[in-house]
């Protein structure tokens, strides 16, 4: 047995190299290299249409990239799928689907069950345990259409927890949830980190990114900067990602930028419009004016 065959960057929880993807000939992701060490809470941050959701969907194989490869804990993603849990955007599914919270969480175990086998009592118990971890065990038999937005998000997180993965990929876990749920989700993420898990989350709120996460990748079609949040969360980097008009508070270089007027030379590439990435910008802080001058 050759020990090194297929092993690549084993010290990284997630290693994405040369990833390029496009919709209708327009590049959505261009030559993306992303490296996330194990045991961190990593945020992927960038303006609308930067390709954040597409990046996650490329990693899990829902979008076929034009080029690039994905390694998880040193092995190709295909071999490591059981170690990865994916939490899609809450709004990506029809919540009027006739099912209960417990049933949705049980779907997290379908991969482990394999073909043809039905979930049994023990699977239901595991799912109930995961629901309890997000404080939703009282809603196990609730029709999912009757859940609030925050409760739906918790059910999605429980479905990922029950997978007992090493790497969690989350698309906008804080979108459209109230302050209580946001707090609960942050606690949950920190608990995952304490247990040595790695979380990579698409995030939309520049105000909270430095307090919730310890690793940051700024994305705008290409990776602008990545690394520990203390090093990456700077006015220069954010301006490079969002364009010169972004208004910043409390960046680590201690020089909060005033609202820039006019276009600065060397502005970041204008984001392309990505039909999959049209998130509502309601979650953006009012201090961030992240509109890029797209005609």
């Amino acid at each position, binding site marked *: 047995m050759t020990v090194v065959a297929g092993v690549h960057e084993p010290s990284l929880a997630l290693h994405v190299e040369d990833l390029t993807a496009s919709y209708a000939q327009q590049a959505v992701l261009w030559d993306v290299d992303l490296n996330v060490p194990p045991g961190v809470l990593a945020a992927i941050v960038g303006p609308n249409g930067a390709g954040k959701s597409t990046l996650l969907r490329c990693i899990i*194989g*829902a979008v076929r990239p034009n080029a690039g490869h994905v390694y998880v804990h040193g092995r190709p993603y295909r071999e490591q799928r059981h170690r990865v*849990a994916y939490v899609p955007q809450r709004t990506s599914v029809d919540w009027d689907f*006739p099912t209960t919270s417990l049933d949705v969480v049980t*779907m997290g175990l*379908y991969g482990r069950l394999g073909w043809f086998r039905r979930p049994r009592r023990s699977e239901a118990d595991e799912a109930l345990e995961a629901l309890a971890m997000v404080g939703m065990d009282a809603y196990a038999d609730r029709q999912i259409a009757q859940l609030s937005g925050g409760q739906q998000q918790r059910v999605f997180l429980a479905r990922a927890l029950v997978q007992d993965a090493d790497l969690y990929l989350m698309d906008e876990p804080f979108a459209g949830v109230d302050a209580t749920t946001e707090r609960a989700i942050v606690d949950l993420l920190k608990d995952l980190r304490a247990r040595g898990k790695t979380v990579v989350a698409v995030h939309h709120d520049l105000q909270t990114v430095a307090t919730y996460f310890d690793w940051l990748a700024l994305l705008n079609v290409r990776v602008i900067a990545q690394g520990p949040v203390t090093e990456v969360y700077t006015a220069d980097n954010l301006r490079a990602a969002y364009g010169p008009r972004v208004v910043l508070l409390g960046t680590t270089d201690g020089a909060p930028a005033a609202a820039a007027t006019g276009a600065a030379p060397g502005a970041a590439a204008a984001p392309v419009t990505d039909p999959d990435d049209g998130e509502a910008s309601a979650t953006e802080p009012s201090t961030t004016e992240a509109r890029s001058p797209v005609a």
Partner: protein
Amino acid sequence: MDLLELLGDFTVRSVALGAALVGLVAGALGSFALLRRQSLLGDTLSHAALPGIALGFLLSGSRSLTPILAGALISGTLAALLVLLLTRSTRIKDDAALGVSLSLFFAVGTVLLTYAQRQVGAAQAGLDAFLFGQAAAVLPSDLTLIGGIGLAAMLALALLWKEFKAITFDADFARSLGLPVLALEALLTVLIAVAVVIGLQLVGVILMVALVVAPAAAARQWTRRLEAMVALAAAFGALAGVAGALVSASARGLATGPVIVLAASALVLASLLVAPERGLAWQAARSWGRRRALGSHRVLVDLLRLGQDHRDPAYASEQGMLDTYFGGPTGHVLRRLRRRGLVERVDHMPEEGAHWVLTPTGQAQARELQVPFGKRPGDEAPR
């Protein structure tokens, strides 16, 4: 013939059984079509089966059902592929692509059917029965074939139940679990096509979509679980099938398809109206009940406030004043409250009309209600 006689007839019984099975399969798989918003795909599949039916007859040169159904399945699948091709490679959206594919295949089918009916033996083959369905044209050997295919489709659905559920609810998540989503979606579409094809002889290409959509839409009204929805849709489909077959058999010459569809539509109508929670009647009753309760609550609180203003909990308020407070006549509300023992009518000044007081129970209940309506400043002040 009366019903008992009908059921005693072996042919009628087997046709009813066949129709039940067709309805069962269409109802169960139609539930998935409905949840995937693919109901109209059933319409395209069934209309597009027509050229396959005609070609199956022409190529085999006989009325044998196997080549006809094979042809129907192939041309239906081709039509579904055309829809996929149009939506993927052009700017045409789903609905237009379905329409283009449906009309193209149906036109080709009509031309081929006209040609086929000029061939020898076409009249005996009963090809025109495939348009609106004719139970009388179904042979016992056909029923065996239909039944075999239908049971195979149900078996596939049972085996891949959780996989189909996963891709229908959340395809991206299913992909992340490693499920071959595209292949499963294709298989589900083929199974829906199978459900359509085995019903063509009984229901006909034009109305078969109803048996895919109607039982599922009716079942959706009654339940919160996919398992229950599919089971109920299957039962509704079987019921509609049996009803259609029996009515059609008792009245000579009546096409089976329209009768089956009418039965299925009656189930939809009833479900839309009376199903708990989602039914219109249920929602109207709930909304009416809420409005009525709100009216009672307001009048109770108004009486309490008038009493508080006069520092007399048993203050007799004149009905005209309550009408003004309420913004409309309160007589019926007050009479309802009196029946519940919350208010009493007093006539202490007959020339001024009716006056009303809160009973002690009414006062207690009004005080409980007052909180959500908001207290006025001073209400809490010690007196």
